[in-house]
């Protein structure tokens, strides 16, 4: 989950998010070097007494500052495209869960085997128990098996919402009349928090998502208890 004064990403829980973190590191290093170079050039410009007001041509430097950025962009684009296609790979999900956005809560349906559906409302601040997280806890968490590929079908009953879980690298728009699909695979058990990511009204900030990833046998016990 997020922590106060956070600037970077949350720790990765899925292989895709790990890849995204590494791509971010790679791009950030390139940005850091370009920023260093620009700062150095600015300091040079500010500390020179030389001026040149009659430049007619500058073929060499123009060649360099065309070719070099092209190379840098290729170095960024290739890993980016690789991850883009990786995110769309077909990976045979074992379970399908539908999530519907409402104003202002999420509802979930597990209909692969039996008819299991429930709503997930945020727990108001006044009803939180000690140690629980403000604006993040819900009454019914989405319990899912870990290390299993899960298909999430996301849609909405009213206005636009967005189902997002940052530590899994997921963000899928919930559009009324449209079914969007994303796949989820967690490498480890735990609680993973997210929040609605598309403005949807007055309580847009108060419809969080909590995934509880557990070993398969606990998931089976939970689903049996919910029926």
């Amino acid at each position: 989950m997020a922590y106060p004064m956070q600037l970077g990403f949350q720790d990765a829980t899925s292989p895709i998010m790990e890849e995204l973190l590494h791509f971010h590191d790679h791009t950030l290093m390139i940005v850091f070097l370009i920023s260093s170079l620009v700062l150095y050039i600015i300091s040079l410009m500010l500390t020179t007494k030389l001026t040149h007001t009659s430049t007619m041509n500058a073929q060499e430097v123009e060649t360099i500052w065309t070719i070099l950025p092209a190379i840098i962009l290729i170095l960024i684009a290739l890993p980016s495209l690789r991850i883009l296609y990786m995110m769309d790979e077909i990976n045979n999900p074992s379970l399908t869960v539908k999530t519907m956005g409402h104003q202002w809560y999420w509802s979930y349906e597990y209909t692969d085997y039996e008819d299991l559906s429930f709503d997930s409302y945020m727990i108001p601040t006044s009803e939180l128990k000690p140690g629980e997280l403000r604006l993040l806890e819900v009454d019914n968490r989405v319990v899912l098996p870990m290390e299993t590929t899960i298909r999430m079908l996301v849609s909405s009953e009213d206005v636009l919402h967005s189902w997002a879980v940052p530590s899994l690298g997921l963000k899928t728009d919930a559009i009324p009349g449209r079914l969007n699909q994303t796949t989820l695979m967690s490498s480890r058990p735990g609680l993973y928090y997210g929040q609605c990511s598309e403005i949807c009204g007055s309580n847009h900030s108060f419809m969080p998502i909590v995934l509880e990833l557990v070993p398969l046998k606990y998931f089976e016990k939970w689903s049996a208890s919910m029926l």
Partner: protein
Amino acid sequence: QCGRPRFDPWVGKILWRRKWHGRRSIPFKLLGILDVENIPCARDSVLYGSLGSVVAGLGHFLLTSRIRRSCDVGVGGFIVVTLGCWFHCRYNYAKLRIQERLAREGIKNKILYESTHLDPARKQTNGGSSSS
């Protein structure tokens, strides 16, 4: 656990310092963006780059006695060496991650399927004995 606000006279503003899960909440970032503490290979690349910058700049100055051009060579050396170390280290890191994943899956399969017909060790032994 909340920390109390601390007034830092050097910065001139109130800084909140919080301990969150036993780690510092604000890691050190070069130019405010590059987290050299937590990004794999970042610290080594920047250190090697700095060393390369000093060597290149100093070497150029000793050869030519031109200060400004030596500084330019130093900065260029920093960028080239940092990038080179970065790509080399990240490539090896990626190979290591793949090996770790294969080892982890191999151990998991071994534990799950030991003494069953799916045991990877049993398949290899059967393959070896049938060929002899």
